């Protein structure tokens, strides 16, 4: 009877297919990823059937967190952000150093009053999440949110006009350049469990500025 030969030494596994697969997945995720932006608050957004895209370049965003605090962000070209922060700093006489100024251009939403802003900008990302603040004041006696929105709107309109004309000049003959794409869009990101009255403060501020077409950030739900 033939003896069964036992293989000598350790068995070897060919790992090449696994490596192939792993790198395929890595490549896929690298290309498909759009990174979560580093917002100072996390909010759970409600769902709706709304299917418009969130604009990336022409976004004026007010976030309402669970405690009803307001956060403000203007996304877009750095010239817009620079103009907004310098106008705000001048109006509220906020002593911003050059480093703090640059820091503002880097981050996304801010959520503090102008008096707290220098300290807010000096802390790092994690510190900002735990920064003790009541958010941007938006009551009738001290409506800083209104100034933020107003300056952002004006700066973005100005920038959008130039960008539109430029895009129109450079457009190919069969390309349609819509002026709407260059106008600011006013977006509210509300936490589902926040009280509506708090969101209403932001909404009323927009309406005071005669900006009535608002958008709510929602996650997409299927139309039934």
């Amino acid at each position: 009877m033939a003896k069964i030969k036992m293989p000598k030494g350790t068995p070897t596994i060919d790992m090449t297919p696994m490596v192939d697969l792993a790198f395929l997945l890595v490549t896929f995720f690298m290309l498909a990823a759009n990174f979560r932006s580093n917002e100072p608050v996390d909010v759970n957004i409600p769902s709706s059937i709304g299917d418009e895209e969130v604009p990336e370049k022409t976004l004026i965003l007010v976030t309402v967190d669970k405690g009803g605090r307001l956060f403000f962000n203007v996304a877009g070209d750095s010239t817009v952000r620079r103009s907004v922060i310098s106008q705000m700093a001048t109006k509220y006489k906020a002593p911003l150093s050059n480093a703090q100024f640059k820091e503002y251009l880097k981050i996304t939403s801010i959520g503090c009053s102008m008096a707290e802003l220098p300290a807010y900008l000096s802390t790092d990302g994690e510190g900002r999440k735990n920064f003790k603040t009541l958010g941007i004041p938006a009551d009738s006696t001290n409506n800083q949110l209104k100034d933020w929105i107003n300056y952002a709107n004006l700066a973005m309109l100005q920038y959008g006009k130039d960008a539109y004309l430029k895009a129109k000049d450079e457009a190919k003959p069969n390309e349609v350049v819509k002026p709407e794409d260059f106008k600011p869009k006013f977006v509210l990101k509300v936490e589902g469990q926040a009280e509506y009255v708090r969101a209403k403060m932001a909404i009323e501020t927009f309406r005071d500025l005669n900006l009535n077409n608002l958008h709510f950030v929602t996650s997409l739900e299927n139309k039934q």
Partner: protein
Amino acid sequence: MAQIVENGGGDSGKGKKRPKKSSTHVDMTPMVDLAFLLLTFFVLTSTFSKPKVMSLVYPAKDVPESTEKPVVKNAITFLITKDRVFYYKGELNPAGGPKTELIETDFGPQGVRKLLAKENEYVIREKLKLDGQLTRKEIVDSVAKKKLIEAQKTPQALKVLVKTDLKALCANFIDLIDELYIANIGMIAPVDIMKDEQALIDAKIK
């Protein structure tokens, strides 16, 4: 480890010495480690579903109030409080009519959706007609959109007022607006609550 090339023990003692065969195996373990590390990183940091936005036009503020009372015909007013929603049809306490009673509803399939489907039947039927024409390619997309907006402005179309009290949550409000969009309602007005309405809600909650 996975790829250890064994050559120990065999050389000694047996006559002829062969030149060592150099192994072509490469230890891939560190590379796999790295690949999976990167994979985990990208899986955790990426977000796939881009959030969408839902547009809502609020009534303009500075319009001087017209002296004549707006005709509230074919309208429903929704009153939202914390996790509960009420509605009444037409005017509040109409002259010569019975006093307004609030009716409670919910966001389930038998609640708001059924109510709106019934009340806004005209527009929904128009929408179905347009959808049919669209699939048969009798009209183009932009025409269908325009016609739907026209249908939403006809007197038969339902108008909806949305009022929230102090305890309402944002999720309640957005759920309702979402239902209104599902029911193809063109005229949505989020407005301030009146004292009488607040009193009616308070009476209902108790």
